[in-house]
């Protein structure tokens, strides 16, 4: 399972990449592998305020709809509009082209509560 070293993780299988005061958010390789066949992605509105550990987006596979939780609180500055036409990017490239939304962090201290790559690997039993 691919768990890049430069990212922070949640127990609910999101990743966050910190770029200054902005966090880029997506789902992990493990998550896309478990979900498989992602066919629809519902993203938050740009400028929406999101809260850490609250349902912020929805990923739908053939089987089921899954909530995606924001790893950090803040305002959404951008969403990946490519996912509307090509939701399968989440399966094919979860850490790059499959990014979901960006949050300008209101409380960067929350980053300290996220899992390190080693902790996440242990969490999923990898």
């Amino acid at each position: 399972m691919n768990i890049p070293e430069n990212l922070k993780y949640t127990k609910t299988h999101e990743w966050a990449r910190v770029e200054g005061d902005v966090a880029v958010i997506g789902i992990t390789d493990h998550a896309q592998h478990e979900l498989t066949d992602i066919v629809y992605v519902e993203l938050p509105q740009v400028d929406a305020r999101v809260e850490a550990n609250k349902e912020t987006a929805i990923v739908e596979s053939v089987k089921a709809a899954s909530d995606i939780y924001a790893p950090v609180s803040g305002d959404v500055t951008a969403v990946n509009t490519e996912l509307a036409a090509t939701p399968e990017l989440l399966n094919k490239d979860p850490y790059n082209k499959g990014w979901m939304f960006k949050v300008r962090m209101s409380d960067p201290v929350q980053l300290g509560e996220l899992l390190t790559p080693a902790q996440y690997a242990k969490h999923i039993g990898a």
Partner: protein
Amino acid sequence: MVATEKLKRTPLYAAHVESGAKMVGFGGWEMPVQYNSIVEEHLAVRRRVGLFDISHMGEVLVAGPNAERALNHLLTNDARRLAVGQGQYTLLGNDDGGIIDDLIAYRLEPTVYLLVINASHIERDFDWMTTHAWASTPRHADAACVLENRSDQTAAMALQGPAAARCLPEASGLKRFHIQQLRVSGKDCRVARTGYTGEDGFELLCAPADAVALWTELLARGREFGIQPCGLGARDTLRLEMCYPLHGNDITDATSPLEAGLGKYVSFDKGDFIGRTALEKQRAKGVTRKLVAFRMAGKCPPPRQHYPIVAAGQRIGEITSGTQSPSLGTGIGMGYVTAGAATPGARIEIEIRGKNYPAVIEKPPLLKKNT
């Protein structure tokens, strides 16, 4: 989800786990939902060939001079129409005209029938049938019929897809909805030309001890045709594209065959049967709701069970089965709507998380095939 330690396992359980299948609870059984991708498994069956473990399904033998009479009392279709070696889709009905289960009944011999029933209903069906079979038959022993639950002594697999017949040349002469005793690679099995996918194919019933050998043999034979082991996920998307009902979702003991569009499997000209009075009344008065198939009109979240169906701002029903169709690339589903709204071509809406998305009622099947 049901705790896994309480679930039953089929003889192929170890083979599924070994090949990396994702296992889930279904109808009291621990079954593969997918091996890697539902979409890939689905398309393999539409284009090539797929193999499913259906050992969880139940098998009941009904035998004796009064077997035909008992079945015509218990089931809605007419067992008299079956020649030896022939099967029919039929329904186990209750007194209110509801559907206890749907099944295929095969006539194996003049006075011996095999019923293949749904996994989650085996005990309930068998209890109902043993209790009610006698009502139709004389009570002296030599004229009776015997019911035997063979589910634990029977494993089953379904070989489905356009290349299925090339993987099983032993059964190439078998006609659709017919069953035959065959030897496949030295193993005795019953092979029926039936399935739940809309493709050509076979269902093989065998002894549990032979299941792994047969499974392995069919996978080996299918390799040159691109065979794919398939889980319940693909089984569900395949059947839904064909609008085959799933008992528990689309048909239940509170829905009638007439509401579900299954009237052609109810024989009103065979004499009395359980549920007849209720169904005759319904037929005379007309049904108030009908099961329809629909297709989403654009890109939207997949429709799913229990989502409301809306027309002209009014809620007209609810989805009983819904998914993203791998063949069509759009959302599809079925659900009951008020009878007046059940017109093919009618524009409806599906309410998904508080937002309405356009859809169109379609005449079944949802996947129109050229063949």
